[in-house]
């Protein structure tokens, strides 16, 4: 049975498999290899990311999970020594095709980073920045409000929108960064360790938020916190590091990708089992 066939809420009739019965694929990754300065950081990854799901990437340090998530909005383009081989289809279109504009990619596929990184501007301007750059000036106030509401921050900041974003707490700053990503109406939100710098209450708010946001967006998250993946993700991919001692090389590989419950109750691969149960390293 393929991973897609086990997705909760998706019924697959084995006698008559039907494409339409499967969940819509947002990203179709095939044989992806990323190298920095000729050294592969991640090798031969193939998986599908499904619409309106939270998909989590877990694995030890150096397994390439952050490298991988950065491929989805072409962030690796910004690193001169990085090369990306293989294909990532975004709704069937080659994300790395020559005619594709990386700026447009990053509008459709937003990103939130580990450390909240608001601009040293007002709360309002932080959220309005993206739409202004894209020339979306009509109804800007409504757009800002809507994004802040979606990020579950509006009630806390509505009376002080002109104050500096830096006056907010860490958890609020992270939700502001999520609002900033939402303001340009993306389809996908990539989150690289979005809660690792936050306290438990702020972490819970971000996790609750992911659950809300996935109704409208597709979310991909990298997390060090396995239990966070278990709590928030519909699908989980486990990455590991393959060490080639002869060449002194360490390469990230995808070990297993499945429905989150399966990964955390009965994983198929012993390496996943060893990692999630803490028998690794």
């Amino acid at each position, binding site marked *: 049975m393929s991973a897609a066939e086990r997705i909760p809420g998706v019924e697959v009739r084995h006698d008559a498999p039907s494409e339409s019965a499967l969940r819509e694929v947002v990203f179709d990754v095939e044989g992806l290899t990323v190298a920095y300065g000729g050294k592969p950081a991640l090798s031969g990854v193939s998986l599908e990311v499904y619409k309106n799901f939270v998909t989590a990437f877990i694995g030890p340090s150096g397994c390439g999970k952050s490298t991988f998530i950065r491929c989805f909005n072409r962030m690796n383009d910004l690193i001169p020594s990085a090369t990306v081989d293989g294909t990532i289809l975004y709704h069937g279109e080659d994300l790395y095709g020559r005619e594709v504009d990386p700026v447009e990619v990053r509008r459709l596929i937003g990103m939130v980073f580990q450390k909240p990184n608001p601009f040293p501007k007002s709360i309002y301007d932080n959220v309005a920045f993206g739409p202004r750059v894209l020339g979306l000036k009509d109804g800007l106030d409504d757009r800002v409000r809507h994004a802040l509401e979606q990020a579950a921050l509006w009630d806390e900041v509505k009376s002080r929108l002109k104050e500096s974003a830096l006056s907010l707490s860490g958890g609020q700053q992270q939700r502001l960064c999520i609002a900033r990503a939402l303001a340009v109406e993306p389809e996908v939100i990539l989150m690289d360790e979005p809660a690792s710098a936050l306290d438990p209450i702020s972490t819970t708010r971000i996790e609750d938020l992911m659950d809300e946001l996935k109704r409208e967006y597709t979310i991909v998250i990298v997390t060090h916190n396995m239990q966070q993946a278990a709590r928030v993700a519909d699908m989980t991919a486990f990455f590991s590091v393959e060490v080639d001692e002869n060449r002194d090389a360490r390469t990230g590989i995808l070990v297993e990708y499945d429905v989150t419950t399966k990964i955390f109750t*009965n994983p198929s691969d012993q390496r996943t089992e060893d990692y999630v149960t*803490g*028998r690794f390293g």
Partner: protein
Amino acid sequence: MRVGFHEALDQLEASLQEEGSLVLRVLRGAVTALVGHDLELADEVIAFDDEVDSRYFAIEEGIQDLLARQTPVATDLRLVLAVLHINLHLERMADYCVTIAKLVKLAPDVAGDPTLVEGFQDMGARAEEMIELAMDAFAKRDLAEAESLVELDELIDRANRRVVQHVLSLGSDPKLQEWGLRMMIVSRCLERIGDHAVDVGERVAYLVTGEFREFTDASR
């Protein structure tokens, strides 16, 4: 490595095996008291249940601690869940042994049907074998051994069904009839112990395969 956690898990499993040994002792005691109409031994069996209960609660507390603090997943999670269920099954088996001991004390002191008494000895031995097999399958994570419990259980079930015929043929002596009625419950207790051993086997199968299923369909 989560050394402390895995040690705690190992201890929990060892403790469950010890509980299994206690249940075997209490079952042996109950059947011996029954066959020899030994009221003193019956009292000991009843008192011994406290030992099983304290082990049962200690295991439950250990599970609570692991779930609250360690968030077990994958095999560890399945093991914790298996221990949780098997613990309860063992405790129930011990309770059935206590019921048998109480029935020994309640049954009138008459020379009962020797065939029936011999049958209980056999059923008791069979139940012991099933508990040993179930706990061994658990220790070895042996799916085939766990599944073999179904056949053994069928033997106890058949013996239990024969008891009714024997009791009906005991005659009209009211004391003998009362004895017979009490013995029907004894038989039922032994039969239920076999069922619980099968349930333990099902938990072993879950632990090994990750799938929830019953070995046999009770509705058939």
